[in-house]
């Protein structure tokens, strides 16, 4: 375990060094992230200039939700997106061999190897938006304070599991970036509580692309809108999704043949 933490540190240090080589680009990207977040908050404020509650979510709770959206999206763009993109490239070119031959878990090496440090901005902004939202809500109790990081971790893991399952398809179909594009499109829908959507979209966002769950549930927990039972179900569901996706990955790995094998 400690070895893996040290490996992670090493990976991310080299990636950060690489990013700092292009300083102007880095600054531009940070500014872009700030503009994107600010305009999205602006869009929510426009909606709330006509109402005080949206499906039972008041402005404070809604900002918490939006913050959670940026935390989840930031996490996936920080680690998952770059790593999974590289993974699919490796499958296509047959260079996955290099990861498989190394003396560490291949799943770890493939899925957490790459890192786009600039996305830390998105995590920070998400945290700020959550904090602003919380300041408009009544004080947070013990259950909410403990439950929130757990629910958020579940959200991250759910996203990890679905992306792992989707990209595992690359072992058979090679070109799956289009499927991933669908995922990123639905991701966009996470910015509103999943219960505002019509039936078919709500079902998609809670099952096939569980982005609705990953964002809405943590926000519900900290806004005091979820009982312990709901959190328990989330934890169980997340563990199940993670185990299933990992199994699927191992099955897929067996049909990987390498470049000249």
């Amino acid at each position, binding site marked *: 375990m400690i070895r893996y933490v040290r490996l992670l540190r090493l990976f991310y240090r080299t990636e950060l060094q690489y990013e700092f080589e292009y300083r102007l680009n880095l600054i531009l990207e940070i500014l872009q992230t700030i503009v994107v977040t600010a305009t999205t908050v602006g*869009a929510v404020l*426009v909606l709330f200039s006509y*109402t005080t509650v*949206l499906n039972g979510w008041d402005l404070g709770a809604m900002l918490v939700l939006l913050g959670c959206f940026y935390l989840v999206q930031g996490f996936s763009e920080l680690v998952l997106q770059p790593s999974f993109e590289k993974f699919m490239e490796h499958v296509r070119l047959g260079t996955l061999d290099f990861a498989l031959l190394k003396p560490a878990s291949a799943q770890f090496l493939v899925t957490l190897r790459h890192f786009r440090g600039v996305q830390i901005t998105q995590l920070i902004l998400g945290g700020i938006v959550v904090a602003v939202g919380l300041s408009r809500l009544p004080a947070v109790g013990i259950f909410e304070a403990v439950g929130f990081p757990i629910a958020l971790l579940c959200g991250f893991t759910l996203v990890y599991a679905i992306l792992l399952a989707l990209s595992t398809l690359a072992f058979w179909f090679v070109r799956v970036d289009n499927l991933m594009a669908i995922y990123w499109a639905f991701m966009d*829908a996470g910015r509103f509580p999943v219960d*505002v959507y019509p039936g078919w979209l709500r079902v998609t966002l809670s099952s096939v692309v569980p982005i609705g769950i990953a964002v809405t549930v943590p926000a519900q927990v900290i806004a005091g809108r979820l009982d312990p039972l709901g959190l328990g179900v989330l934890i169980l569901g997340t563990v199940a999704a993670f185990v299933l996706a990992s199994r699927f990955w191992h099955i897929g790995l067996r049909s990987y043949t390498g470049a000249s094998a």
Partner: protein
Amino acid sequence: MIRTYRALLVAQLQAVSQYRVQSVLWMLLEIIRPVIFLAAWVAVANSQGGQIGAYDVRDFAGYYISLTLVLQLVFSWNAYDFEYEVRLGRLSPKLVRPLHPIHYAVVENFVWKVTTFIPLVICLAVVILTFDARFRTTPAHLLLFVPSVLLGAAISFLSGWVLATTAFWTTRVHAVSTLWDRGLFIFAGMIAPLALLPGPLQAIALVLPFGYMLGVPAEILRGGIDVPTALLLMVGQAIWVVFFYIAFHRVWRAGVRQYSAVGA
């Protein structure tokens, strides 16, 4: 010129037919954001007893469906490819051909719109049924919609090229185009119909070009504004077309002189 276009058209149709699934998927990407905001506005309207300003739930549905259709007809993505071509020096072979690169872009856009039109209409039909959309369109509106959407497409296309052409100097359009996209997001009628943007935002939206690309044709198609207002807004559209046409010519000419491919 007609023969050139016919040849380009055939070539592009063949190229696109290799990636049928991909076309449909990209179309789904375009449709999802209007549906997200439609759902949000329906929730807002329901919390206010079903009516916001001049819009009830069914009007919102009509508006966002029109917007999706306009988005599909108006949107052009070539600016995003252009940065790539300049940075990698791939523009050079296109520059020495006897045809301005913009013609390739025109044909690519046209073919994309034609080939994705039927799946789009099917998707929109599902959304219309889900939200029970209402349209107040009269024949006069339909008549105005055709030139209005063409003007919108011209603004979008030409402004996209002006943005793309800045790649000659910066080779990094990405930052500029993000700002532009966010302007579209706020002011084009995506997050809210233009009539519902709060006070100052609405005034700004009427001055900027964004609303004239999407919001104006969408409201005309839905029949949400009367004919005199529509005509007035179309004059605004025409002004922006002229502006971006002149800007494109100026910037392009200066830019090509600036451009040198790696190894040139």
